[in-house]
């Protein structure tokens, strides 16, 4: 803004010029948005705490889930009031995060009267949001307080249990943990956790006395799982490599390029958010359970495309532009630039990412089998469903060996590529 030292600029800035007006408006908008974000953060903090507390109360008192315990308008009103009180009479979480505090403009400590005026003025100013556009806002002017960066001079920082934000965070952690514990743990299952450990003994025993008669067929299923991962990765690479160029920010310039980039990245991000298991149940219905491994491959394929495109594109975004410029400067065609400037920089990371994804796919392939996606997972789930613990343990050993071996192999190869 136009705050030049006096010695350099004699004239005060021209407030009537367009530039000056714009500056003034910007200054006020900045102040308003800062105060508004502080208020919103405080309201969010109080609202979440309220929801958590009523969650616990309703869960324990009525055995149902309720989020506010009161009508929603009362909830809204309460949150706003609580935020106003917190900001007026203490140093709220929002102040803490923004590293600001309320202090009298003339220095010294604020009085209760000032705080009260601030509290009343807050409603007039912040709720209609008009007063916020004044600089400083109306309620601060009325109370003679101002929101300033924290100064540490003259006093020691208070310990956390003496500050309202510190107490809030502590209460929030306790309540949050209590809510988490109370919805995820019930008496019945906790009792069983401590009394019914015997139910799994057969399974652990089976880990030491595997059923040798099913090892050979299990290895065949293991091979199917490996092939599922290989096929899914191979087909995903074929799709993801071209897509990655379209999803790299530094290559996609211009309005068309940028919108394509946004659409692609968004789609990939959604596809990645859906677990392969969910993809597998969709594809299983589509290609029918008779082709279970195929459904598994399709599920892994879709998820791998999304994941690999993201990894590849991020790698493309971080290539050294100097090399590209150097080759372009020699008058090379786009293809030559790609061949001599881009590809050498990305080939090793691409292979490394692919190996990494293959490693993940092997693990995922065992899991996808559980929904009926074929391979070793299907066999394992079959045994588990029929409570054939010894066989399940045997299969589990084989899976652990496979995953271990692939993990080792892929990390060794990746270390070599890096």
């Amino acid at each position, binding site marked *: 803004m136009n705050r030049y030292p006096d010695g350099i600029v004699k004239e005060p800035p021209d407030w009537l010029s367009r530039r000056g007006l714009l500056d003034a408006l910007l200054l006020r908008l900045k102040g308003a948005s800062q105060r508004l974000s502080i208020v919103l953060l405080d309201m969010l903090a109080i609202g979440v705490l309220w929801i958590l507390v009523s969650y616990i109360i309703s869960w324990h008192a009525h055995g*149902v*889930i309720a989020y506010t315990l009161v009508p929603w308008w009362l909830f809204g009103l309460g949150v706003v009031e609580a935020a106003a009180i917190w900001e007026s009479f203490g140093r709220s979480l929002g102040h803490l995060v923004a590293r600001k505090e309320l202090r009298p403009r003339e220095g010294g400590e604020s009085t209760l009267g000032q705080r009260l005026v601030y509290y009343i003025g807050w409603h007039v100013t912040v709720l209609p949001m008009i007063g916020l556009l004044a600089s400083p806002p109306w309620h601060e002017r009325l109370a003679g307080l101002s929101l300033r960066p924290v100064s540490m001079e003259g006093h020691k920082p208070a310990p956390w249990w003496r500050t309202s934000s510190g107490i809030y965070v502590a209460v929030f952690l306790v309540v*949050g*943990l209590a809510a*988490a*514990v109370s*919805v*995820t*743990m*019930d008496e*019945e*299952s*906790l009792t*069983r*956790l401590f009394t*019914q*450990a015997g*139910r*799994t003994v057969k*399974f652990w025993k089976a880990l030491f006395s595997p059923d040798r008669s099913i090892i050979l067929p299990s290895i*065949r*299923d293991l*091979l*199917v799982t490996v*092939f*599922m991962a*290989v*096929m899914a990765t*191979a087909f995903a690479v074929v799709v993801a490599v071209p897509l990655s160029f379209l999803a790299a920010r530094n290559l996609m310039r211009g309005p068309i390029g940028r919108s394509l980039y946004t659409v692609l990245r968004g789609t990939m*991000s959604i596809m990645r*958010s*859906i*677990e392969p*298991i*969910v993809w597998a*149940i*969709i594809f299983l*219905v*589509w*290609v*029918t359970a*008779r*082709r279970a*491994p*195929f459904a598994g491959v399709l599920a892994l394929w879709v998820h791998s495309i999304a994941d690999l495109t993201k990894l590849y594109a991020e790698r493309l975004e971080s290539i050294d532009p100097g090399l590209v410029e150097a080759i372009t400067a020699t008058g090379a065609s786009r293809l030559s630039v790609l061949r001599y400037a881009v590809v050498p920089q990305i080939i090793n990371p691409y292979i490394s990412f692919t190996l990494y994804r293959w490693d993940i796919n092997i*693990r995922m392939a*065992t*899991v996808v089998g*559980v*929904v009926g996606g*074929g391979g070793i997972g299907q066999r*394992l*789930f079959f045994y*588990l469903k029929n409570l054939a613990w010894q066989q399940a343990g045997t299969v*589990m050993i084989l*899976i*652990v060996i496979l*995953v*271990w071996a692939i*993990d080792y192999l892929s990390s060794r190869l990746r270390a070599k590529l890096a």
Partner: protein
Amino acid sequence: MSSNQTATATPATRNFWNALRRRALSFFLDWLVWGYVAYGVMYLLNKYWWTVPLERFYSTLTLPSWGWPLAILGTLEMAVWSRNLGRSLGLRAFGYEIWGADGKPPTLSQRVTRALLWHLSVLPLGMGIWLSPERPWHDQGAGTVVQPAPATRLAGRRKAIFSQWGLMSLFLIGFTIWLGWLIIQIDIGILFRRGDEGMRIWREMLHPDFRYFAVPDPAFELRNLPYSILDMAVVTLFMALLATIMGAAVAFPLSFLGARNVMGFNPVGWLVYFAMRGFFNIFRSIDTMLWAVIFAVWVLWGRPLAGVLALTVHTVAALGKLYSEQVEGIDPGPVEAVVATGGSRIEVIKYAVLPQVTPAYWAFTLYRWDINVRMATVIALVGGGGIGDLLFYYKNQGDWPKVGAVVMVIVAIVWAMDYISGRLRERIT
């Protein structure tokens, strides 16, 4: 690879054994490749020649009893000849090459001699290697050496694609795709033949039914689950949160027990170190979903506690490994400084290790939280509770609009968590 590993020079014995080990590994790689080819050929013969007429036929391997020794010996022979008559995949992978002792490329007669002598030298319990480890009998007899390939390209060398290993790699890629295609029973056509069915699912999922977003679905009263989608989403988040907190709390102390630079000072320390590392590795290889099955049998099927415990166990193992690797990668300077002032092991951890690893610990924990949220959304499939319960229930009912609604909520949760944890991690590191 250092250049002093040539067989003609007489380097330190240790280097030599190292080289020998690598040569053996490279040989086994070749053998493995040919074994894989043999498996594929057997598979194709089974499939196309004496087909077993089974509906669910895949990966069946039927060999007569005399076939096994034949297959083993045959692949062994293939490995030997492929190594001697050109640059095989195994030689290439480990960067070796066969050369004449006079520094010239080996002649054909040298190559054949080497392959034949190999049988005399290696088959009788590897006598030719043990008795003359500096240069095994078959190399001596044929006047050849096996040495690391020069880093620079030699003039007159074939292009990679026309060399034996290049052709072999191309063949293996094609062969694998072919085999995989048959084993997986890939049938692109069915996607179109049942295209109507697939499109129906997608159409219905894209018209989600949010009727029971905030109101519990009456269908669940039978199962005593008075939850709406929103309730289940909250429960899922809590499950992931609790599992991450508990997992991190357990993994934190264990990570120091699994770090070489903290434990590796005496035999007991080493023992604890290896026990911890083994624990991390084994428990990590068992997927969360499999843990969930075990815990679902233990506590009740479908209760969130089963899911929380499964997530916790896997989190402990995964975080423990990440944490302890972080501890192993610290700068030893501060540790030595604290040790030099006479600090105890606890003090070393507190003043020298912790300040260096804390940011990374936070980053890993956030990352794990992200993964746990993802896993918690589907862990219900194996009795772990959470929002997946609704997903799989509606899917079994064939109620795709409601499946669509649940999937959209899951995507929103996972996406938001991904974003938040990514932003937080950026700030930390």
